């Protein structure tokens, strides 16, 4: 048998464009790897059983619940968290993602705890679609439908999705 069966593993993962390494017990979930080992605390854990969506991150560009993925499973993968949504401009300044801008503009957050999960889910969703097309309400519902928010009642989150989509459409034209 060539496969090793381990209690602990060293995980090498690219997080927000930076190669990171950590040695962790194999039972560690990805959300804990990010928060505890890599000290990226922007990813929040609201339920730890995969329902609330607060902990959503992108693994190889796709939104997943980081509480439902083991840290060892992302070895070699690329992970994007809320900390990685904004990009740097030429002068080293921070350029927020249109979704981040839209959340502020539309008052789409209150306590902010669930916000990172919404932001990465929506950002990935908007980037995966044809930016020049007008966003439909069905698309909006799909993008916000899998995450729980206890503060906002969602109206402003949906508004922010439309706002961000409009910004991205303008940029794409």
């Amino acid at each position, binding site marked *: 048998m060539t496969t090793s069966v381990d209690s602990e593993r060293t995980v090498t993962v690219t997080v927000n464009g930076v190669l990171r390494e950590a040695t962790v017990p194999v*039972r560690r979930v990805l959300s804990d790897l990010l928060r505890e080992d890599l000290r990226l605390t922007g990813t929040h854990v609201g339920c730890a059983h995969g329902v609330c969506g607060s902990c959503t991150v992108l693994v190889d560009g796709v939104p997943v619940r980081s509480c439902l993925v083991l840290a060892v499973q992302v070895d070699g993968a690329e992970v994007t968290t809320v900390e990685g949504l904004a990009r740097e401009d030429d002068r080293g300044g921070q350029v927020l993602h249109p979704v981040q801008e839209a959340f502020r503009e539309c008052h789409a957050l209150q306590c902010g705890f669930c916000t990172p999960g919404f932001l990465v889910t929506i950002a990935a969703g908007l980037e995966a679609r044809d930016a020049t097309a007008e966003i439909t309400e069905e698309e909006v519902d799909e993008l916000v439908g899998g995450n729980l928010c206890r503060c906002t009642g969602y109206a402003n989150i949906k508004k922010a999705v439309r706002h961000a989509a409009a910004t991205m459409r303008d940029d794409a034209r």
Partner: protein
Amino acid sequence: MKPAPFRYADPRSLEEALDVLTAEHGAKVLAGGQSLIPLLAMRLAAPATLVDINRVPGLDTVETTGDGVRVGALVRHDGLLRDSPDATAAARVQPLLARATANVAHPAIRNRGTTVGSIAHADPSGEMTAVLALTGGSVTVATPEGRSTVGWQDLFVGPLETSLAGPAVVVDAFFPALPARSGTAFAEISRRKGDYAVCGAGVVVTLDEDRRVAAVRASYLSVGLVPEVHDLTEAVAGKPVDGADWAAAGALARTLVDPDGDIHASADYRRLLVGVLTERTLAEAAAEALERTAA
């Protein structure tokens, strides 16, 4: 809510996976993990070893032939929904698969969870278990002794329980093609969008050459301990599509099921929904059957 300690292996081949499963007492296969990891987090399951098959090559394909759709163990739910040649081909041969998959949880879960994993999880509330049953499907099981095909009737033993014992990996699920002159529909009612269904129904209607109802079969979610397929043909046999009394088929279905109650729905309410969903889906499936017969 942190998993109890376990050991972990991520074999690079099926043989290695089976080796580890054989060597490690109490080992469990990890694929998408969307059902298993919550159980680990709540310490409702505490396997000694997890054998993660995500790095086993060759398990991530959807193969469609005229006979049906074979879904590999690492195909995510989203793989059957996404706009891709594989998904399109699969939907053409067995449209029920994508229709049911669209009802699975939310996108982030569908990005990770697998069709085969949800079958192996054997949850009678799951969409895929019902679809496997309704299509008369089977799974391919790899064991150290070799591969075998296990039909759905032999697979599901109880809630969250399959007949698989000892070291085994379900490597694919096969969903036979929708027969000629047939149509399908799938619908479910859940408390919140994306929740497990309070009740769901998948149906297949087959017409004869005169476009009269020849066969009607249905399978339900969250009704009963294991997936079942009910033959509802007698209620509408020989009727033209626009003259068939789908409500009669719904009424028949209500007499055939034996649901349980829980905090979300009483047994009676589930029985009600079986009737309503049967009636609604049959009308839709029959329309599709008619369309496919004309084509």
